């Protein structure tokens, strides 16, 4: 395996690999990207997300930070209700004034990790994917930030398209990230600017919680978050990992 997707097609869920004309199912069928429904590319366990893990984004948010920079990573948890695959639709509530994307490198755990040292951390990584960790800022409250109403909304965590084998990514800290809204670049960054890099995050988290295969760490977003509106086509991409598409829809699409 070097890169794998999970897709729904013809009444079943399939494993798929990239193909010159789109993707190829394990049973041999070759399909265009828009012929299938893309699911999160692996069975997701615990979802751990990082806040303020790029130096430039920390500066961007400085106005609203009521605490100083801390040594301990700002980690929080999300649940599977929030997950949605490549080319999915995410609802923007009509009463929201500021909903924004967050392009993030997703690190997928492949081997159980408990009290793992930094030096051994990357051996516990199965692979990488792209995440778009949407937030609805209007609902931010100062209790258990970032509260689940901001960060754990149905369909608010886009993940995919591929799970890229760790062997294909010798150094996860040299990857260019960018977000495009309706084709225009609005966010740029590079994983070299992570405040807590991938081994540091695995060392920190595994010091108090056992990480299991399928657990995923969303490593945070660089500066350049911007608002999205109904109808926007949002692409979060990371060189060598994938290009993850998402469409913003309104309440009406959900009968609200």
């Amino acid at each position: 395996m070097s890169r794998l997707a999970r897709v729904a097609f013809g009444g079943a869920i399939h494993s798929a690999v990239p193909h010159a004309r789109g993707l190829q199912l394990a049973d041999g069928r070759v399909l265009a990207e828009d012929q299938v429904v893309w699911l999160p590319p692996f069975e997701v366990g615990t979802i751990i997300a990082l806040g303020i893990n790029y130096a430039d984004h920390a500066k961007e948010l400085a106005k609203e930070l009521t605490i100083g920079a801390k040594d301990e990573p700002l980690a929080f948890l999300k649940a599977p209700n929030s997950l949605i695959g490549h080319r999915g639709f995410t609802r923007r509530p009509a009463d929201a004034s500021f909903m924004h994307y967050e392009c993030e490198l997703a690190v997928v755990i492949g081997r159980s990790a408990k009290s793992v040292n930094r030096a051994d951390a990357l051996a516990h990584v199965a692979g990488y994917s792209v995440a778009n960790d949407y937030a609805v800022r209007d609902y931010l409250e100062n209790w258990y930030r970032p509260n689940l109403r901001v960060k754990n909304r149905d369909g608010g965590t886009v993940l995919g398209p591929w799970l890229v084998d760790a062997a294909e990514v010798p150094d996860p800290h040299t990857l260019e990230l960018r977000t495009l809204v309706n084709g225009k670049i609005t966010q740029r960054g590079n994983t070299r600017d992570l405040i807590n890099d991938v081994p540091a995050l695995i060392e920190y988290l595994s010091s108090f919680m056992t990480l299991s295969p399928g657990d995923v760490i969303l490593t945070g977003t660089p500066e350049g978050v911007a608002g999205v509106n109904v109808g926007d086509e949002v692409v979060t991409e990371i060189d060598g990992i994938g290009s993850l598409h998402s469409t913003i829809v309104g309440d009406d699409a959900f009968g609200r």
Partner: protein
Amino acid sequence: MHSTLRRGTVYGTLLNHADALAALGPAVHAPPYKAPPKAPVLYIKPRNTWAGEGDAIVVPAGESQLEIGATLGLVIGRTACRVREQEALSFVAGCVIVNDVSVPHASYYRPSLRFKARDGFCPIGPFVAFETLGSVDALQVQVEVDGVIVHRSSTAGLLRPAARLLCEVSEFMTLSPGDVLMLGVAAGAPLARAGQRVGILIDGLGRLGNTLVAEEVGA
């Protein structure tokens, strides 16, 4: 857990007891909070925290005591999205006793995962079908340490009773069969230290017992 329900996500609810919010006093209006919570304050107890009856709870090195958070957990029986308060309880398959263990911490602004997400920090008791309870709105919750009752509360003291909580939570996140939603811990949750036995008793749900042990440093 009910034999046909695989456990999904376990959600905790913070400050849902009127006395727990009142215990913060004027601090709720001061920084960093600046205002009392408007929406339900929720958090997640991930799968590494799940434990059962009799399992040891490890007191991490450097901590002398852990907070024993006694609460009832609603076990979702069918997909709950935007449920009305009047019908909310029909989405509940049953209930469990939950021991929502924490490393004591003073701030609810942006607590570290280290306080609530440690391995084994969420013992969960046996499943009891909702229809055998009838209502969960006035159940007595007791905590015992080494066989002595040290804390009493009631689910009658909730700011958002079970049906109201489910209604408000399912407005923005869908709950699935097997998900657990805790009603919340009352004010003054007791502390316990390594070597002590803790038990949580809830009317109609029985008892959930666990023992605290010290972390083996260097293990």
